[in-house]
């Protein structure tokens, strides 16, 4: 029978010798705004190359998981490890602080936002080239080649010189995906990537993400309300509610034989049966 002490010892051992097959690891991550507890001591792992979709009611903290991984939010407490490097390590009572190691860890994470967030004063090509040139220090011809390749891959070879204002929402989101990909991240985060799109434009964006999911060995973590898409592309679906993981498993299981009443209720509400 495992005692509490040996459990603690096992956790400590795990954090000292990171398992190379684990890409993302949340340990005891807590986040609250005042009395609103968004994450309650979250423990959560994502394997390298795994495609994980997070589902759950709005305001349940799904997006906060992504935002903490992108360092757009700070945890109140807990550790987050990405690719073996410490992104966050906040002891109780400490002020969260970004370290050199955090910044290195962040380099391997990319993010696609609900509202695209393209730079409006740059063309599609410039949007994709900007960070590789200025942050990674790539030579312009090389960055240009990379950007053109990615924009062609998302079906925008004809729109290199267009500004965001001249593109549709679906096209803007595809530029945003190319922009994130240009940094060659190991982990890609998608925060409701189709929620701001007109219905007829959703398909083209999902198509691009589907292709990434099947062709790249990138780790993908996506918050989405597109249940059929989640079922189709993910290796694992995580049902999240009120700051905790309700259940987690293969998409067939979560969508067709959910083990929890909360999951059943949520799916019933969003799928309409």
């Amino acid at each position, binding site marked *: 029978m495992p005692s509490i002490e040996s459990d603690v010892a096992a956790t400590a051992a795990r954090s000292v010798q990171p398992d190379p097959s684990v890409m993302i690891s949340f340990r005891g991550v807590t986040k609250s705004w005042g009395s609103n507890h968004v994450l309650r001591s979250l423990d959560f792992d994502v394997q390298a190359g795994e495609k994980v979709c997070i589902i759950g009611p709005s305001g349940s903290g799904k997006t906060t998981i992504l935002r903490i991984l992108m360092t757009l939010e700070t945890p109140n407490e807990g550790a987050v490890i990405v690719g073996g490097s410490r992104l966050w390590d906040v002891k109780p009572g400490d002020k969260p602080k970004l370290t050199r190691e955090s910044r290195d860890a962040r380099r391997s994470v990319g993010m696609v936002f609900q509202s695209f967030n393209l730079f*409006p004063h740059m063309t599609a090509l410039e949007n994709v080239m900007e960070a590789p040139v200025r942050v990674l220090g790539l030579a312009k011809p090389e960055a240009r080649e990379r950007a053109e390749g990615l924009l062609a891959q998302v079906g925008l070879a004809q729109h290199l010189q267009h500004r965001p*204002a001249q593109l549709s929402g679906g096209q803007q989101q595809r530029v945003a995906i190319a922009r994130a990909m240009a*940094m060659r991240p190991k982990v890609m985060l998608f925060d409701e990537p189709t929620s701001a799109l007109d219905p007829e434009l959703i398909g083209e964006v999902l198509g691009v993400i589907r292709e990434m999911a099947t062709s790249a060995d990138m780790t993908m973590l996506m918050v989405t309300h597109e249940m059929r898409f989640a079922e189709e592309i993910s290796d694992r679906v995580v049902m999240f509610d009120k700051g905790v993981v309700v259940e987690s498993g293969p998409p067939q299981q979560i969508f067709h034989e959910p083990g929890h009443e909360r999951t059943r209720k949520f799916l019933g509400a969003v799928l309409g049966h």
Partner: protein
Amino acid sequence: MSWDTAFAISILPELLGGLWLTIQITIAGMVIALVLGLVVAIVRRLAIPIVSPIFGFYVHFVRGTPLLVQAYLAFFALPAYGIAFSPLVTGIAVIGINYSAYTAEVYRAGVEDVPRGQWEAATALSMPQALTWTRVVLPQALRAVVPMLGNYLVQMFKDSAVLFAITVFELMGRVQAIGSSTYRYLEPVTIAGLLYLIVSLVSSLLIRTLERHLALNRI
């Protein structure tokens, strides 16, 4: 006293000389206001302990006292402490510093109007703070505030008339000099008014053209 065209023509070269000095003061003052205001706005936004509040006080102090009082202070009071420059240099410095407090607020509004998503996208691309400012935030903020900065340019051009009080012989200073030596004010004041009006209108048109040129949704 009726209008004397011959007299008006005779003083025109003198007044045009004053106008030219006024324009030079405005350009030099605006360069100071644009650069200093930007520094003040960025430092305040960075929320550096002690330093940022000092810059905040600077903005409130400058905006809370009249330009004329500041000009008098700089010209008549500071020399007592060993800080003395020519009237022209003092005038340019005073008007530049005065307007920097206003441009700082304009920049601040421009920076605040850049959506949070733009800062977040820069973070997601691992762009350091300095790059985020120079490549993402400022290009958008500055475009947005060109019309407001333009208004201040025109206003500064007119406000520089105050500097005749510290013996700078710009346009208004020359009007005063001509008036007190010939006892004729009608012609110099009328001509000066027209010159101010013409330059203001032309500047406004130029600013509007620039504004259109910088608009992001231009296709």
